[in-house]
Structure formats: C-alpha cells, structure tokens
C-alpha cells in the first residue's frame, strides 16, 4: 500500500467515525423530541377547562329561608343548596321528558353544587338575586369541546349520546360554552371525576418526601463519606463496606420499598401511605448514590491542601472541616441534588408502602396520607376516562419540569462554588 492510499484510508475512517457519532446523536435527539412533543401536545389541554354558562337563582325560598329573614353568613353556609343547584343544572335547556332532564344534568361537572355554594359564600350580597355563572362541565363535555371525542362513530360506542350532542351544539351556538384556565388542576387533590382532579396533593406529597429525604440522606451520606475517605484505615473491613455501598447503589429500587414495608411499617408501625415513610424509603435508596458522589468530590480535593493544613498544626478534624469539606462542597451539593432528582422520579418503592392509595385531601403535614407525582402518573395512566389521559401527560410535564429545575440547580451549584477561588 502506498503512502497516499494509506493517508486516504485514514481520513476516510475518521470521516466515517464522525458520521457514526452524529447519527447516534440525531437518533437520541429524535426520540427525546418525540417524547416531549407527545407529552406536551397531550398534556397542555389539562390546564384548560370547559365551562357552561348557567343562570343561578339564589332565591331565599329555594334556600329554605323566610322571605323577611336576613340570614347570617353562617346560616347561608348551613343552608340546603339542592333546589338552587337542581334548578340551575336543568334550566339551561328546554327538555321534554325525565330522561332528557337526566342527560342534561350530567353535562355539568361533579363539583357544580360546590361551585354554586362557594360563589354565594364569597358574595353574600347576591342572596335573593339571579346571577350568571360559568360552571365547570363534566369531563365528557370537556373532552368533546376539546375535540377529543369523534362524533361520527355509532351512538352506543360514544359517552355522549345524540341528544346531548344536539344540546351541546345549541349551547355552542348561544355562546354559552367557554374555555377557562383550569383552577382545579394545580390546587386540588385527586378525584374520581377527571374534570376536578388535581395534582396539588401529589406535588405537596412529593415535596415533603424530598425534604425528608434531603434531611436524612445528606448529613448521613456526607458523614459516612468523610469518615470513609478521611479517617477510616484502609483495611479489609472498609474495603467490604466500600464494595457494598457500590452494590447498594445498583439494587433495584423496589427492594428498598420491600425493606420499608417490612421494617418501617410492620416493625416500627409508622403510618402507611404517608410522605414521611416515603421520604425515609427514598433516603435509604439515595444514600449510596450520595455517598459515592461525596467520596468522589472529597477525593478530588488535592492532598497538598490537607498537608498544608496538617503542617500548620491543624488537627485531622480541623483539616477536614475547615478545608477539605468546604472544597468538596460543589461536588457534594450537585451529587446530592442529582440523587434527590432520582428520588423524585421514583415510583416502585412508593407503591409498596401504600402511597398508591387514592387520596383526595391535600396533605398538610408529612404524616398525612398522600400521593406523589410519579405515583399519580401511574394511577392516572390506568384510568380509562379520556380526561385522565391529558392529566397524566400534564403531570409528566410537571415532573419533568421539576427534574430540569433540580438538575439546573446542580449545575449552578457546581459552577457557582467552583468559580470562586480555584
């Protein structure tokens, strides 16, 4: 082979290698793009709800008050709103028989009576007057309006029948159907009715779990790493501990769920389905990850710094606490945040400790039963109703958002603290 042909071959090989790299990047970007596209197009509509304009009559008779009486706010809250709600829910369309009345009534969402009540509680001066309210519609009407229900399939395979379609069309014509920001999604807990189901409970539950995970895992992991790296003698026992920490980091997360179920719930009797137990479980799971990250960043501190401090007559603890740990901080912080981000997306161990339960109330303390974001995604993804599909995607959007925020925080922490001196 001549020099020239060899040179040509080498260039060609280099070109080819670059091509392979670029192709791999394009393929992975394509799939990421596809995922994001699917999630965003499917989930964006969850932040919007459909409302129906309805006339509500807050008449004293319907609420059961005497005409001459001026009821207090407390009395209004005690009043029976059934008649007011019933009238409002059936008066927006002229029906001709009981069956049609039923079909009309179920076009409103599961929470319309509460919406009617709340409006009067907030505006007590409306008592005895008629007002026009935009009430949240049922999930079926919502999906129909968002265009997610095909109208041309046979009636018995549709959730909206022909009569309801007729009503819907006439309501659209009268301009009574509107779309508004979905105030339920970010502020309410889970519900059987898709139109009023929200992720607030899951967000708060995840938040509590992550905070508990941070409070437990970070100090324990840092101390363990500092001891192993700076103080422990290098012998058989520490070697075995080290190997086991590395192995623990690779243990499937569901095993930690089983551990928590067996020990935390059954032996210690901690409350089931709570973010307290969730947080402890996640901290067990992230401990090895954070220990490894902390050790790596401690190792990266140049030995000359340790020698400098020791030669100044600093004790071992002073050397570590004054110099080594502060210098390792950017690495330990970003390692911790990445470990927490991993914990935030973890589902399997939480299923086993009962965080998969259907919880309507938004938790106010970590010992309240609660959901978490990834478990909420899992729960909703199993629901057949169309309304939960968009909510699943929207929750994924939220979870991805939180993960991106946490990872950017890790990058920021690393750069901010590293740039300072070295």
């Amino acid at each position: 082979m001549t020099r020239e042909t060899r040179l040509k071959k080498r260039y060609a090989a280099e070109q080819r290698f670059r091509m392979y790299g670029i192709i791999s990047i394009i393929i992975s970007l394509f799939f990421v793009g596809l995922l994001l596209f699917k999630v965003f197009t499917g989930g964006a509509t969850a932040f919007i709800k459909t409302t129906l304009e309805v006339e509500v009559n807050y008449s004293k008779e319907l609420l059961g008050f005497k005409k001459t009486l001026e009821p207090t706010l407390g009395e209004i809250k005690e009043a029976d709103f059934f008649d007011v709600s019933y009238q409002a829910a059936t008066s927006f369309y002229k029906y001709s028989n009981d069956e049609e009345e039923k079909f009309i009534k179920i076009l409103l969402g599961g929470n319309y009576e509460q919406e009617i009540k709340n409006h009067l509680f907030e505006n007590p001066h409306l008592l005895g007057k008629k007002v026009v309210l935009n009430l949240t519609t049922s999930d079926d009407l919502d999906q129909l309006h968002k265009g997610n229900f095909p109208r041309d399939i046979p009636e018995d395979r549709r959730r909206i029948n022909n009569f309801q379609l007729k009503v819907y069309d006439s309501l659209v014509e009268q301009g009574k159907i509107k779309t508004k920001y979905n105030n339920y999604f970010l502020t309410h807990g889970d519900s059987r009715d898709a139109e009023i189901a929200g992720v607030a409970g899951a967000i708060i539950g995840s938040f509590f779990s992550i905070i508990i995970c941070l409070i437990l895992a970070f100090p324990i992991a840092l101390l363990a790493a500092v001891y192993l790296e700076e103080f422990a003698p290098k012998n058989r026992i520490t070697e075995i501990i080290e190997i086991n920490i590395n192995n623990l980091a690779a243990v499937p997360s569901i095993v930690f769920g089983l551990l928590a179920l067996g020990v935390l719930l059954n032996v210690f009797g901690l409350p089931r389905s709570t973010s307290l137990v969730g947080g402890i479980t996640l901290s067990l799971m992230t401990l090895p990850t954070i220990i490894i990250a902390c050790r790596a960043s401690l190792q990266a501190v140049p030995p000359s710094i340790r020698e400098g401090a020791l030669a100044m007559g600093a004790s071992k603890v002073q050397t570590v606490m004054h110099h080594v740990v502060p210098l390792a901080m950017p690495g330990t912080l970003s390692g911790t945040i990445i470990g927490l981000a991993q914990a935030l997306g973890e589902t399997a161990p939480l299923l086993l400790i009962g965080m998969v339960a259907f919880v309507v109330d938004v938790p106010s303390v970590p010992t309240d039963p609660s959901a978490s974001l990834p478990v909420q995604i899992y729960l909703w993804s199993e629901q057949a109703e169309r309304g939960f599909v968009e909510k699943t995607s929207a929750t994924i959007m939220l979870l991805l958002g939180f993960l991106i925020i946490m990872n950017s925080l890790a990058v920021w922490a690393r750069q901010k603290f590293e740039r300072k001196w070295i």
Partner: protein
Amino acid sequence: MTMEEKIIAKDVSVFYGEKQALFDINLSIGKNKVTALIGPSGCGKSTFLRCINRMNDVIDICKVHGEIEINGKNIYDKSVDVVQLREKVGMVFQKPNPFPKSIYDNVSYGPTIHGLAKDKTEMDQIVEHSLKKAALWDEVKDRLNEPGTGLSGGQQQRLCIARAISINPEVILMDEPCSALDPIATAKIEDLIGELKETFTIVIVTHSMSQAARVSEKTGFFHLGKLIEFDSTDKIFKNPGNSMTQDYITGRFG
C-alpha cells in the same frame, strides 16, 4: 566551631510497609542555622525531613524507628502531641499550596486555630508581621482580601512561608521550596532564607547543588536511604570526604 544543637536524630529508620526507606540516620542540626539535605531522587531526604514534624504519621503504612530530639525531647515519645509539635515545626512544601482562601485568611488560619490573637487588631498585626517577614507585604498589602491562589508562583510560595511563620515556630522545614519557581522567584526565596535564619532553625531539602552551597551552613548527602556524609557546606562542596559525594556534586551521577 561550637553550636547549640536544636535537632538531633538518633538511629532513625523508616519503613514503608516492608520496604525500608531510611537506614539509621544520625545527625544533629544547629540552632539558627540553615541545613541543606541533598541527594538524588528517591534517596530519602524528603522522608527524613517529614520525620521532623511527623508528617509521615499521615501515611498508614509508614513506620519510624529511632529517636528525633528537638530541644532535647524525643518527638516520637508517646507523651508528645503531634499538633503541638507541628506548632513548633512549620513546613513549606515543594509546590506552593496556599489555601483557596484570601491572602489574609491564609496567614491568619494558624494563629486562629492555635488561639494566638486576642482580637482583630492583634490578628492584623500578626498577619502584617508575618507577611513582612516573608517579604510579601509590599506586594499584597492592598489586596489582602483577594484569593491567595491568584498570586504568582513565587508570591504563593512566600505566602506559604508567611503562613508557616505566622504561628512563630522554632524550626521551618522546606521541601524543595524553589523547584516550581523561576530563577528570579528562587533568588527572592533564597534571600529570604538568609534573613529567616536569624529567628528560625531551617532545614531545606533541595535538588539544586548551587542552592545548597549558597544558603546553607551544613549539608547532608543522602543516597539510597543512607546518610553518606554530613559536614559543613564548605567542606562538602570543596573537599568531600566520600567519593560518592564527590561524584554527585560534580554531576557524575544522580
């Protein structure tokens, strides 16, 4: 020539695990004198230096036999606290290793942990005094709050010297302090050593024969873990008693 002995090594042997690095070193170092240790790489001169402030304690597998007396007291005695020892025996390393803190904090660190200053004014005085003694004050007095790592190599090494003298030690060990520096910075450090010996006893390990000749009163030549010859610098460089020393200083091996 009479002199007061500051450091006396008696039969010092050092083992790294199975491997013996130093063989029965005996030498005595005079007070307020500069003693140079020379020898080819791996000869054990740095190991010996690190025995004087027990920096070898950090290494798990390192074992030291024999005695080193400072002011007549064996520093390897069980009753000796290593932190107190290092307060009296400071060290400057081969590569400048200022802490990644401000210039002020670098110098004030030692006095802080040993509680040498009662208040801020006293600390300011110690910092100024130490930096002046290390011939660095004029260059950094306007930027004491800037990071020590931002200085030039020579300035960093003088900062490390200022740091070492801030706690008022009796002995300063220097482990090839100029090997990472250019000739001008080296000259400054050498001048400094000449001034510092008024106050401190200095032991310096160096690869530069000319440096040993310039700065030291006594020189020890190490080879393969043994102290081959220890005598006045004049004698070592003009009329060495051992042919190996002769070969080394004339550059025939090493």
